[in-house]
């Protein structure tokens, strides 16, 4: 940008001055429109929840309800096994896999024996209760109460043979990848869990 002071020989004609004033008006209204657009938009977060084990049900629900407490508009799009979290009956019976998790205190060869998943799930549920951690059901309830939009992917509802009535009241059905993508486009935070 030039910092030269205009010399007295370059005074604007009345037409040029009027054109400049018009241009300033146009830019000012453009800035005002942009400012109101930015100001109106609450922060948004979208989580894609794809896992249906007991341990993996927690991160999306905890982050979603916490973000809502921070004033975010939150959408959690549940697809594939993530649907189990929203399935009213199955959500109360989510299991922990004892195989393929090197942090388990038992070797994989033993973890693969029949009944081991049931045992490790029972141990985990005991720990959850002992440590005052909320249940999946409670977290779904507070998420819905806080205005989180819990969505169940229609394609995987059909694929897994579920019915809309199987899900918690307040869960959004009839949504697909395009609506999830559109929300992700507008979101400040997008997570795949």
């Amino acid at each position: 940008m030039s910092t030269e002071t205009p010399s007295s020989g370059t005074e604007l004609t009345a037409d040029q001055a009027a054109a400049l004033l018009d241009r300033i008006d146009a830019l000012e209204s453009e800035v005002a429109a942009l400012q109101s657009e930015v100001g109106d938009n609450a922060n948004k977060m979208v989580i894609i929840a794809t896992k249906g084990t007991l341990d993996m049900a927690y991160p999306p629900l905890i982050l979603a309800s916490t973000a809502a407490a921070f004033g975010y508009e939150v959408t959690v799009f549940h697809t594939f096994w993530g649907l189990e979290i929203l399935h009213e009956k199955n959500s109360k019976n989510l299991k922990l896999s004892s195989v393929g998790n090197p942090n388990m205190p038992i070797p994989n060869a033993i973890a693969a024996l029949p009944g081991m998943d049931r045992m490790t799930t029972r141990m985990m549920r005991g720990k959850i209760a002992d440590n005052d951690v909320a249940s999946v059901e409670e977290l779904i309830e507070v998420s819905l109460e806080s205005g989180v939009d819990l969505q169940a992917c229609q394609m995987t509802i059909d694929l897994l043979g579920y019915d809309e009535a199987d899900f918690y009241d307040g869960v959004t059905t009839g949504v697909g990848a395009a609506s999830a993508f559109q929300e992700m486009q507008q979101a400040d935070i997008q997570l795949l869990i």
Partner: protein
Amino acid sequence: MSMDVTETLDVKGQNCPMPVIKTKGAFETLAAGETLEVVSTDSGSMSDIAGWADSTDGAELLDQQETTDNGEDVYKHYVTKTD
């Protein structure tokens, strides 16, 4: 207690993320100038509620205290609604 507490929220026996979520819910019912006391047994609530108040318009964290109640660690938080 020198602070003028309007309302007390008891979230003892509840763990992350419940203290913050319930704090937000109780905070919304306050009028400007009123102060909420949150009583928690979750040690993580010290940084969680501080972070929440820092990011929330109109919320000001006045004080946080670590005390012991019948041998149990108790964390108290004081949040004022400024507008």
